[in-house]
């Protein structure tokens, strides 16, 4: 089996704030293979977005990566010099952000922002760069790309802007794309289009994709494998079929159960009791313990990850054999 495109080992990213140390990412491990789509699922505050930023070294102070390894094609990203990391960004690893209105610079033309991405990594003439940008826009389904290039971000609709962001991500045909909730801010119909587009493109080019989201339905449709995160840790990993149909961790069960639509009409909507803990004051032992219906004395100690082949979960009481 070929080496995975990305292998994250025990990643830890902490924020050193005046109020205390926030362990946003606290020992996260997963891998993504070539051409595979990995869904990184969790609520807000679970650390999933920070995981994405940590991979690319984009964590802003007062946060920083304090431990672990991030192996990308043999190089440990956490230990690379800044210039080498810069060469990889946008080139071999690309990122798509959540809100394209804020991620595209409002005072620069789209053409400028696309051409600079090309010229940051390759010595090409401006004319050639512009031509490539035009093609890239066409490939993501943007009509009249010539005119669109000259425009400014605020002149695009939300869905179009996100397509531009995707086009930018694909400019250098990266080996890995990290997409941080890219469709959350869009209408459902546009969302579906974007999803389909991304899926096709990844299949065509063999790009590995990490799709970070809180929307389980989207991830279930798109991903090959899923990692569920809670309070900075990965609590369950597995193929999409396994995790969705036979979830093991009580939190995953709760998440799946919370998706409306599965229940008979008129039945009460299911909720996981309680609230996600504040990252400054995590409960002792397993972070999910206060909200878990299966918790026991044993859960006062922090559980380690148990692996069964390709499956893994971090729980003393995995609900194996249960159906969702």
């Amino acid at each position: 089996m070929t080496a995975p495109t990305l292998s994250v080992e025990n990643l830890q990213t902490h924020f050193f704030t005046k109020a205390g140390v926030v362990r946003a990412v606290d020992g996260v491990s997963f891998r993504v293979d070539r051409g595979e789509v990995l869904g990184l699922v969790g609520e807000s505050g679970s650390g999933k977005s920070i995981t994405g930023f940590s991979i690319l070294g984009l964590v802003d102070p007062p946060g920083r990566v304090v431990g672990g390894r991030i192996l990308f094609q043999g190089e440990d990203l956490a230990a690379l010099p800044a210039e080498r990391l810069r060469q990889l960004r946008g080139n071999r690893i690309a990122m798509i952000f959540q809100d394209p209105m804020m991620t595209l610079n409002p005072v620069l033309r789209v053409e400028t922002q696309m051409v600079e991405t090309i010229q940051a990594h390759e010595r090409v003439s401006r004319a050639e760069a512009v031509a490539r940008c035009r093609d890239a826009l066409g490939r993501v389904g943007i009509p009249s790309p010539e005119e669109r290039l000259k425009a400014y971000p605020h002149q695009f609709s939300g869905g179009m802007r996100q397509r531009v962001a995707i086009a930018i991500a694909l400019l250098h045909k990266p080996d890995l794309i990290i997409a941080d909730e890219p469709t959350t801010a869009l209408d459902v119909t546009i969302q579906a289009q974007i999803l389909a587009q991304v899926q096709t493109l990844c299949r065509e080019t063999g790009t590995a994709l990490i799709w970070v989201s809180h929307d389980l339905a989207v991830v279930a449709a798109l991903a090959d494998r899923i990692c569920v995160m809670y309070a900075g840790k990965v609590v369950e990993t597995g193929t999409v079929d396994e995790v969705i149909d036979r979830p093991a961790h009580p939190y995953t069960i709760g998440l799946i159960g919370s998706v409306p639509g599965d229940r008979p009409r008129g039945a009460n909507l299911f909720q996981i009791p309680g609230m996600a803990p504040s990252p400054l004051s995590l409960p002792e032992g397993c972070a999910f313990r206060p909200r878990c219906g299966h918790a026991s004395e044993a859960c006062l100690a922090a559980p380690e990850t148990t692996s069964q082949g390709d499956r893994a979960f971090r729980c003393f009481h995995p609900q194996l054999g249960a159906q969702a």
Partner: protein
Amino acid sequence: MSDAVIARKPLLGDGILAQALRGILDSKAATLAAIACLVLVAVAILAPWIAPQDPYDLASLSIMDGRLPPGSESMDGWTYWLGTDAQGRDMLSAMLYGLRTSLGVGVLSGLFALAVGTTLGLVAAYFGGRIDTLVMRVVDLMLGFPTILVALMMLAVLGQGVGKVILALVVVQWAYFARAVRAAALVERGKEYVEAAQCLGLSKARILFSHLLPNCLPPVIVIGTIQVAHAIAAEATLSFLGIGLPITEPSLGLLIANGYQVLLAGLYWISVFPGLLLLALIFSINIVGDRLREALNPRLQK
């Protein structure tokens, strides 16, 4: 099972003054500056008692002692630590009295501008509508012109005198207060306690000054501090140009002006020392004001 943390009441309480004080004490530079301000104010108030000579008492001056460099001996045997000016006035004494005048005019005009500007800002925010538009138009107009120009215009028309200078400075400064207070009051106005006070049938004046105003204090304090420094500097400039305070009430600005003519002749002390004192005063106030602005900024407080 709950993770509630019981917050300790911070030292000195939560009030605005406590916040301001804590903000200053948090910074070494600001604390030093605040101490310097207090010292200067004390010196200014005590000037008539601590000055070795009364620079306004023409009988005590001797023109023979004029233009002496620092450290020289007087005819009576005591030392002119900072030298004398052209009329034989002891620079140290003249500076102490000048400090008194500069500080007095600056603080007075600042206070009046604060009173006028804050009231107008509160009124504009509370009553809204046409009153608000009118006040804000005037404010925008005033703020569009540099202070020195407006002061020049006013003094050209009104002539000289302490009262007129203070008036000119108030006219120049009130708009800063009005604008900031109005912005803060608009935010406060939407809050429930204002509605509650209205339901209780409290008089408008009562609502404005007892309820709205205390919650709008942060910008007032910050701007007040900075404007005092601004007023002192403006008065000094106007006096230097000869259209500020009359020579019977010399401020530091006028002292510096007196030294200007002889500067090129090498008699530096007549303008350098008052200038240093003026600089120290303005600088300290500005440092404190800057620190207060950071400490009382609601956005940065999170």
